[in-house]
Each structure stands twice: as C-alpha cells, then as structure tokens.
C-alpha cells in the first residue's frame, strides 16, 4: 500500500507539474530555469538540494524531471499497449495466416537486442518530420521505446487468448451468435486485461530506466531537465565533489522504481491465481 501511495504521489506530481506548466501557474518546478543561488551551492536550508552550474535549484529540477520522465514512460506504455494488445488478440483468436504474420513481425523485432533496437529507432526518428511535427527530444524517445516494446505484451496476450478461446464462455458467446469483434472485445479482453496491468507496472520501470539511458546518450530531452539529463550533467560534476544533483536524480529514480517493482509484484501475486503468497513468487 505504501508503494502504491508512492507511485500515486509521483504520478500526481507529474500531472500537477504538467498542469501548472500548461496554465502557467507560478510554482517552483515550472520555474526551474530561474537562478536561485550561486553556482554549485551545496544543499542548505535555502536550497534543499543545492544548485547546479547555472545556480538553478536541483530540487525544482528533480520535480520537473519527474514530469518529463513519467511522460516518456507513460506515452511509451500507452503506445505499446495500443499496438501490442490488439495485434496479440487478433493473432491469438484468428490463428492461421494473420497469426503467422504477427509472429513473424514480433520475432523479427524481438531478435534485435533491445537496447540496440531502441537506439536505432531513436537515432533515426530524431529530428525527423512526421505529419508536420518535428520529432524532438521526448517525442522521439517515447516513440522509440513504444514502437520497440510492444513485442512482450503482444506475445503475452496472444498466448492467453489462445488458451482462453476454447473455454466454455467463449464457446457460449459463439453459439449465441456474437460477432467475432464482440467476442474479442467484450469477452476475451476483460479476461486477459489484468495481465496487461501487471506487465506494465513492471515494465514501466524499464521505460524510466530507458529514458535515463537515452537522455544520457543525447537522444532524449535536451532543453528541459529530466532525470536522465540530470544524471548526464552530474557526470562531470562528480569529480569536483558536486554530488547533490547526481544523488537527487538517482534517488528519485530509485524510489520510484522500487515502489513500482514492489507494487507490481504484489499486484501479480494477488491477480495471478497460479501464484499465491510470498513463498511462491
């Protein structure tokens, strides 16, 4: 429960900061660019987490970074659910040629080592124009992560649908004369959807970490602070003994991932009837 609380807190924070930015409310995190003290001031009562090279508050940057990092992970998750779930369901339900094609596509994507694939997508997508929009920073980052990570969820859903499609309730629906669309959406989906939730509570962590790595390699957000860019900036500062920016960003990622990991495990234990209790995880 504590973990759920922590996760919710992060999401609320991210949502609040985006709202504040949208409506231009004058709160701390949206004014992260403001100079609040001297360059590299250590943590003090005035600046809780110290300042960076430009005298910007590390605390504000960390809060603002939550918005960027969580936005990337959230968009990537949504994108991969939107691609992966319908494809998996359709492949599992119809089998045959459709199944072959879907399996071929995801085996192909799945055979490229994950990090390489994300990087390749990110390199190519960066600064491309798509439907009149220039793909900069976070857009390219979440497109790259989302377009590459639907494989896992698609495979999972396909397997589950194959298992479920011969169950009595599906057969009953067929005998009532339900359309195939209705069977998939109204009967099969609700029975496999809990897996999507569990899978994504665990995968979200990987997305946040992927954002950190992309930003570090210069393929993520470049103008605004995210946890990844903060760690990247902190790389050079460490040798001067400036540890607070590094510590703040790492701690932010750590607490968030830990809460999500524990929460995801608990969710899996309670939703998956095959497991049960601590001993069997």
């Amino acid at each position, binding site marked *: 429960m504590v973990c759920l609380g922590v996760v919710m807190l992060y999401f609320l924070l991210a949502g609040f900061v985006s709202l504040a930015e949208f409506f231009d409310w004058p709160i701390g995190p949206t004014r992260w660019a403001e100079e609040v003290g001297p360059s590299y001031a250590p943590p003090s009562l005035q600046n809780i987490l110290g300042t960076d090279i430009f005298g910007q508050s590390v605390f504000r940057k960390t809060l603002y970074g939550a918005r960027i990092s969580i936005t990337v992970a959230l968009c990537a998750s949504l994108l991969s659910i939107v691609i992966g779930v319908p494809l998996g369901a359709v492949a599992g339900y119809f089998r045959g040629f459709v199944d072959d094609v879907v399996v071929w596509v995801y085996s192909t994507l799945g055979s490229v080592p994950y990090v390489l694939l994300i990087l390749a997508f990110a390199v190519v997508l960066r600064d491309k124009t798509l439907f009149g929009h220039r793909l900069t920073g976070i857009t390219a980052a979440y497109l790259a992560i989302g377009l590459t990570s639907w494989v896992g969820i698609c495979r999972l859903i396909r397997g589950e649908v194959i298992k479920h499609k011969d169950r009595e309730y599906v057969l009953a629906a067929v005998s009532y004369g339900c359309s195939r669309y209705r069977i998939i959406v109204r009967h099969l989906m609700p029975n496999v959807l809990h897996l999507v939730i569990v899978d994504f509570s665990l995968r979200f962590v990987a997305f946040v970490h992927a954002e950190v790595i992309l930003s570090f390699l210069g393929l993520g957000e470049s103008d605004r602070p995210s946890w990844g860019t903060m760690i990247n900036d902190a*790389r050079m500062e460490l040798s001067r003994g400036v540890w607070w920016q590094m510590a703040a960003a790492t701690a932010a990622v750590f607490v968030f991932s830990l809460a999500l990991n524990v929460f995801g495990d608990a969710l899996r234990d309670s939703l998956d009837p095959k497991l049960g209790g601590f001993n069997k995880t």
Partner: protein
Amino acid sequence: MRNYVIRRVLYCVAVVFGVLLLTFLLFTVVGGDISVEIAGEGASRETIEEIREEYGLNKPLFLSVDSQFVSHFKSTVTFDFGRARDRELVIDKIKRGVGPSLSLTAPIFFGTAAIAVSLSLVIAFVRGSAWDVAAVVVCTAGMSIPYLGFILLGQYFLAYKWGLFPVFFSPDLTTAQNVALPVLIGIAAGLGGNVRFYRTVMLDEMRSNYVRTAFAKGLSVRGVLFGHVLKNAMIPIITRMAMSVPFLFLGSLLLERFFGIPGVGHLMVQAIAARDYNVVSAMTYIGAILFVVFNLIADICYAAVDPRLSVE
C-alpha cells in the same frame, strides 16, 4: 528430430530476412537521404550528387533489379557494410572493437551467471526464512537503481576517491587492471534481476516431487541441490544465457563509454553521436544474427535433451 531442426532453420531464415527489411526500412526509408549531411554545410550540388551516386541513394527504393533494397540485401548478407563516415570499413572497425569488448563482457557474463545461480540455489533452499525475504528485498532494490547510478557511484568512490582502480582505460596497464572495475560494476548491476529470476526457477524445481524423494532417500543437501535441482533447472538457465550472448559481442555501451574502453559499445556510442547510419545498421544486424543463431542452437540443444519438444 530432423524435421524439427529444418523447420527451426527455415524459421530463422524468415526472421533474418525480417531483420534485413527492418534495417532497410529504418535507415534508408525512414532515415532518408543523408547525402546532404555527409557533404556538410555549403557543399556544392555536384558533391551531393556524387555522394548520392556513391551510396546509391539515387536509385529506386524497391521495385527494380538494382534497387536500393536489393543492394542492401546483397551487401548485408555478405557482411559488407560499406564505409563509416571516416572512410574506414565498418567491418574493420567492428573487428577492432570485439577484443576489448569481450575482455569486458565475458567476465561479466560468466561472473554474473555463476554468482547468481549459486546464490539463488542457496536462497531457494532457505525459502520463506528471513534470509529469503532479505535477499528478495536487496535484489529488488538493486533492480531499481538506474544502471548509470551504479557506474557513476562506482567510478567516483572506488576509482576516483579511494584510488583502488584506474579511473580510465589506459593502454599502458594490463587488461585485467583496466577492466577490473567495469567488470565489478557490471556484475553488481546485473545481479539483482538475475538472482530474482533464477530464484523463481529454482523454487519451481524445489517444489517438485523428485526433490522430496531425493531428500527422503537421505541424500545430503549438497547432493540434492547440485545433483538434482541444478540439473533440472538447467533449461531456463541455458535459455537466459543463450539470449544474452549477443550482448557479449556488443559490449556494454555505458560501461565502455564511461571507462573509455575502445570496444564495440564505444563504437556504437560514437556512431550514434555522429548519426553514422552504416555503423548503427551493421551493429543492429549483427546483434540480431547472433541472437537468432544462439537461439537456434539453444532450441536444438533442448530438442536433443528433451524429446517431447521436437514433437510439438
């Protein structure tokens, strides 16, 4: 058995073709015309045309005998990846990087596997106890620290502050001295996830009847753990290890970047910074090929060990 192998090989061919198509779509169709970028700012029209000619960018994409896709297909299958931005052959660059990368990743690979498997065996044996809970908590915490955090803190404290290891790669030192710290960091960072995975595998085995029988026969704890449980848990262990072999070759992007190890990962980071599509595309392709080949080997190994698999 023979049919099974043939089917698997044919399937791999389809996947390799898919990867070819993927790299082509990604780097040529979506990536687009890079001649202007190569030529640099202010280049004349003729220079750009020459570059387009050399890279074949003026040819049709798909529907022609000498289309870009056909030439991409031919060159990639023969492992001719063209030249990088600095005119060096991509394949030479990669060959040069493999040695340093392997010296870094091979110890990480075997170290992580050995430590994680034996640790998880012990944890599975004391399952349900306070030790077990503690181990799971530590592993989950370890999984939650970003990889960069491990590297930066390790480099800062162990190398820079306390001077136990060299901070940066230098050709004067022996390989062992150079890779000691990166290897240590790599193992530490990978341990959490691996121990948790193997623990689940081991627990599945621990609950089976044959383990109870073995204990009932009066076999020693060590005999049961290593003789029975480990042997039966080998299949998931081998799968996981086979899947990570491509990473051996690809090196560790971040570790190599931070410690200045001139390996394949470092090459990749440079290529990304320079937007050198030839190099990135070649790496993607080689990584996928390795993955497919090792998966195939693993699949055939299972079929040899477990006859039930080849029937399905």
